[in-house]
């Protein structure tokens, strides 16, 4: 591979991108909207759950059964009063709990007082004199017993935001790649270009590099802005700046480039087969839908839970990238492009 030729293609494409208002708009407006608006909506949703503090919850509990001085485990209870009860792995709904200990349970619409709670998930409940295992109060009914657990949940939520932002490196190439390849066709500049000594591989790499660099640049900028917006919104409550954390950094360095490449290569594949920029963008948009769907599904799963799943998924994405590149090189036929263009 001749790097001078690859660089020449990349630099030429950069120069063209700079003069294309449509591409510039895409590179600036979309990341800007997503990096500012998305975190704002996201944080406000989290806060709307988190700000239901103990004193503001109005419960209407009708007690039909009483438990006192017993130990309960693996049980589901509703409309019960529980006094001096040790509960493990329970699901409580519309209950009154006092002077008890609750571990690894889910509590919904529960009036809780003088109770020790550990590793629990609590929704829409009133808490009074509640202690976690560290003796610290964590506000809101959106509560998981234990400081580490709370931090973990919050981190997962931040991680999920990063996965939403992965839309940016996936979407930008649908515009830039369409212009880059189909633009050459419609401009009729592909014939003299293919008559030069540049190989198919060099051309693919040079063009993909320009799209990649410009897309990943906009993506990283968007990620940093989003991290800044999140920090700005949550730091008064947390007293710290949580982003960018290690998960975000790994996402920016590995997952975002991997997804960006996947989108580029998929669009290159389409571009080499169609003759119209708009058709290419439309097909590209449809093609990235499964990618987006994959991430929406991932959000409920393990992907957001830590660095290792993220790393493994990133590696999987790169493997898919390599497969698409392999297919692209076999499908990219200069003769077919020249003969079949309209």
């Amino acid at each position, binding site marked *: 591979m*001749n790097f*001078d*030729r690859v660089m*020449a*293609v990349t*630099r*030429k494409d950069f*120069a*063209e991108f700079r*003069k*294309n208002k449509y591409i510039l708009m895409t590179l600036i407006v979309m990341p800007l909207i997503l990096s500012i608006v998305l975190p704002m909506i996201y944080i406000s949703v989290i806060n709307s759950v988190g700000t239901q503090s103990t004193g503001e919850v109005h419960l209407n509990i009708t007690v039909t059964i009483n438990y006192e001085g017993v130990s309960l485990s693996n049980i589901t209870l509703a409309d019960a009063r529980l006094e001096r009860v040790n509960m493990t792995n329970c699901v409580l709904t519309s209950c009154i709990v006092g002077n008890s200990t609750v571990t690894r349970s889910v509590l919904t619409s529960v009036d809780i007082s003088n109770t020790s709670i550990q590793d629990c998930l609590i929704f829409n409940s009133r808490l009074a004199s509640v202690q976690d295992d560290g003796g610290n109060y964590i506000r809101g009914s959106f509560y998981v017993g234990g400081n580490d657990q709370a931090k973990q949940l919050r981190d997962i939520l931040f991680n999920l935001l990063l996965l939403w932002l992965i839309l940016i490196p996936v979407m930008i190439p649908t515009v830039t790649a369409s212009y880059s390849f189909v633009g050459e066709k419609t*401009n*009729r*500049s*592909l*014939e*003299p*270009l*293919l*008559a*030069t*000594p*540049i*190989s198919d591989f060099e051309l693919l790499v040079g063009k993909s590099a320009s799209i990649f660099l410009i897309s990943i640049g906009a993506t990283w900028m968007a990620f940093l802005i989003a991290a800044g917006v999140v920090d700005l919104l949550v730091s008064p409550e947390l007293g710290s700046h949580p982003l960018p954390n290690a998960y975000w950094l790994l996402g920016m360095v590995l997952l975002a480039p991997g997804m960006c490449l996947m989108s580029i290569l998929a669009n290159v594949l389409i571009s080499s087969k169609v003759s119209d920029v708009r058709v290419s963008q439309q097909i590209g948009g449809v093609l990235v839908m499964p990618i987006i769907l994959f991430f929406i599904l991932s959000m409920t799963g393990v992907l957001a839970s830590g660095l290792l799943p993220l790393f493994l998924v990133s590696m999987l994405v790169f493997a898919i990238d390599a497969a698409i590149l392999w297919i692209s090189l076999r499908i990219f036929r*200069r*003769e077919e492009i*020249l*003969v079949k263009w309209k």
Partner: protein
Amino acid sequence: MIETIGLGRNYDGKVAVEDLNLKVNDGEVFGLLGPNGAGKTTTIRMLCCLIGQTSGTAYVNGFEINKEPDASSIRSVVGLLPESPGLYESLSATRNLDFYAQLYGVPKDKREKRIEELLRMLELWDRREEPIATYSKGMKQKIAIARAFVHNPQIVFLDEPTAGLDPAASVTVREFLLQLSGEGRTIFINSHHLDEVERLCDRTAIMNRTVLAAGSPKELTSRFWGRTTVIELSDSPERFVDAVRGIEGASKARVEGGKIMIDLDDPEKRNPAIVDALTRAGAKVEYVSELKRSLEDVYLKLVGGGQR
């Protein structure tokens, strides 16, 4: 040198070029003439290794087409002007030419010098930094031709270099090509502008899927018609035409348009005897000339109205 041996190309079973046999010598300006759809562009694309052939083969500068690593070598030594200029409209002339010079591996200092030389030759140096989109059609075509020459290729293929240009722009482009053809490189021109080919080319071939005839314009005309002497008399030619019949080397003496026309094997040798015969018969010869057949005549004879 370019040599094609039984070269052919089909598109989905439809024949575009068949059994094409051509030889273009080094340093020659060669014109390929033919009607629309005759396979001229397909031929150039095959020779530039842009598309493959379905039969036969060809050699460009000693390298076999569409066969690696020869194809890469061919692309390095040829320059191409396609049917459409295909320039990057948002970029300047300098940026367009510099990009191609980089792809051909021309060192920075040499390409700067070459680009300046070409743009000055084209009288576009003052507009070198303006986007191509602001150029006229003729100016764009000139830049596209300059692009084909930017790496000083040994062989240049020009597909319809003056197509769609106004007469003034066509003249400029032709002058530019004449200037560049003097640098000893092989230039292969596709055209259906007979006048252009006649003026620019050392040799030409007329094709319609395959080669119908090839040679210099003079060779082609003499091949199809021989040489004809035209004699204008002050008197009625019908009275004297018999006087030249039977002269050695002369055939088909006839009257056309009030003039005597005689097909001769060697006009320079036979003309004095003909004039003498006419004078002796009492005719008053006003002038003697040779009938000029143009490439157009050859073209129309071979291709006629049979365009596909």
